[in-house]
């Protein structure tokens, strides 16, 4: 479970995240929905401790992620936005490297690697170097690598961005499966359909603030729009309407 309260982050004069508060439950898929530049990636980066918030609190399974970032990181599986791979290492070696850094080794690591390679249908590419992998294959490696230590909480930053239909489906299948296993999945996207198809709960972010929250149905009711996309547009442009 991830609990975020009053998170703030400023870059120079720009406030990227301005008091974001939400909770992502176990056994549920929470969608972080917002237009580009809304502060989704910055929020996630603070969650997985590569950025330090200016203020606010982050709890990962009741661990204070700001005071003990490494303990929190041990309970997180992360697929960052625009992540990179090592072109000279094979897919399997990527999993092993991160698994070892998480303290898994020997037969346990081999077993876990095999499970993930099977799960993501990666056996054909497992022992190939990742240079020249397609976008879908790279995403699978990134995803498998994020899950190698069996994390209770999974953060995915725009995981389906630019993926073809088949790969998108594979990602969705994994995400649903993680939910069934009782994990907490937090998933950011700017694509409406994506979020409405998958998520149990949606947090809409615009201009660094939470502008709406709830199940897809709640949001429709709240905004008075039947169509979730219209609801999203209505929420995302609340204060922008004044300026434009």
């Amino acid at each position, binding site marked *: 479970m991830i609990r975020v309260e009053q998170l703030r982050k400023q870059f120079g004069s720009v406030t990227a995240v301005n008091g974001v508060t939400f909770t992502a439950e176990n056994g549920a898929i929470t969608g972080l929905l917002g237009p580009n530049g809304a502060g989704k990636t910055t929020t996630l*980066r603070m969650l997985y401790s*590569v950025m330090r918030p200016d203020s606010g609190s982050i709890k990962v399974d009741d661990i204070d992620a700001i005071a003990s970032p490494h303990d929190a990181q041990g309970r997180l599986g992360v*697929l960052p936005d625009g*992540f*990179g791979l*090592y072109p000279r290492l094979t897919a399997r*070696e990527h999993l092993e490297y*991160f698994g070892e*850094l998480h303290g898994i080794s020997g037969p346990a690591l081999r077993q876990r690697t095999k499970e993930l390679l099977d799960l993501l249908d990666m056996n054909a590419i497992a022992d190939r170097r990742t240079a020249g992998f397609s976008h879908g294959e790279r995403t699978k490696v990134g995803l498998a690598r994020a899950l190698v230590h069996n994390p209770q909480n999974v953060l995915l930053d725009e995981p389906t961005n630019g993926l073809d239909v088949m790969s998108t489906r594979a990602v969705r299948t994994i995400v649903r499966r993680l939910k069934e296993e009782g994990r907490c999945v937090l998933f950011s996207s700017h694509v409406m359909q994506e979020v409405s198809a998958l998520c149990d709960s949606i947090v809409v972010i615009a201009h660094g603030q939470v502008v709406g929250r709830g199940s897809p149905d709640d949001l429709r009711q709240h905004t008075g729009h039947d169509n979730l996309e219209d609801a999203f547009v209505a929420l995302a442009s609340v204060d922008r309407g004044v300026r434009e």
Partner: protein
Amino acid sequence: MSVARSLRQIAIVVRKELKDSLRDRRALWSIVFSVSIGPMIIGFMMNRVADRQREAEQVRVPVVGTQYAPALVDWLRQQSGVQIVEGPQNPEEAVRNQEEELAIIIPKDFAKTFNQSKPAVLQIVADSSRNDARPRVERVRRLLQQYGAEIGSLRLIARGVSPSASQPLVLEDIEVSTAQQRAAQILTFIPMFIMMAGFVGGMQIATDSTAGERERGSLEPLLVNPAPRLVFVGGKWLAAALAAMVSTGLTTVLCAILPRFLPLEEMGIRFRIGPEHLTGIIGAALPMCLFSAALQSAVGTLARSFKEAQSYMGVLVLMPMIPGVLGALYPMGNAPWMYATPMLGPYVLLTNVLGGQTPAINAFLISAGISIVAAAILVRITATLFESERIIFGR
């Protein structure tokens, strides 16, 4: 986070970086190149010196107009190593086009002037901008002067004057730049090449694991792993330092094998790197590898891109050359402050060790201590840079 766990994680990072770079052809070639370039240059230069020494004795002299001064030509022919050949049609053209290194022109009226005991003109055609021909031109010039002096003496004797009256001065050349000394000077480059190997050997890993990691976007996912930044930086630094140490070792071994294939005996030079030198070389060079790898990791982390990092490395690589070049120009002493200077200390130590005088153990300890402290500070700084959001995400 326990120390044991951090150490284990450092070892994991080291192993990954080494495995990764062993698959990098460019990295491997840069190591092979850095390891072998020094010994190759030394071998090449030594052979040149030996050849030059042999060549200077052998001189081919094209003479135009041999028929006008048969006595002179005969005399030249009798000098050792001199080979007289018929001169080309246009000697100046031939020398200018480098077909000949020199030519002697004997004018038609040579015999007439000569027999009248007037100064007879001889022309030497040479290109003074050609350094390689200079020793032979000089030799021919000296031979002709010697011939002139002999004839002059004979004429004075014939007139009842002592030849020494016309020779108020005797000039003696004492040539210091002998072949031996030139060869010995080349060998003084060995410390520099050993240091260069250390410097270049770690460069590719240091660049690829910092600037390269950032540019590929693989740094962010790496930092999501639960470990202090010092673990990642320490692992990357140690991997680069290990590669540097291996390069240093290989160059040393090559430099030790090399003299066996060089004509050192022929030039009267005694030089060998034996097992007794190896501890000294290791003690001097390996701590330097820790320092150079730390410096390269720090610079690679600061660079905005892989390209930028590489251009900085090109400048950094001059560092180990500075003491080498200075050392070749000015003889350096053994002042204590030298051992306490990061790149200079190892250089002075290596020079001493290879020169056959083993420095005091304290000198080694000071030099190693300074390198290690400087490396630790740089690694600490790099770890701080790895905390910075500007470094992690800034491109």
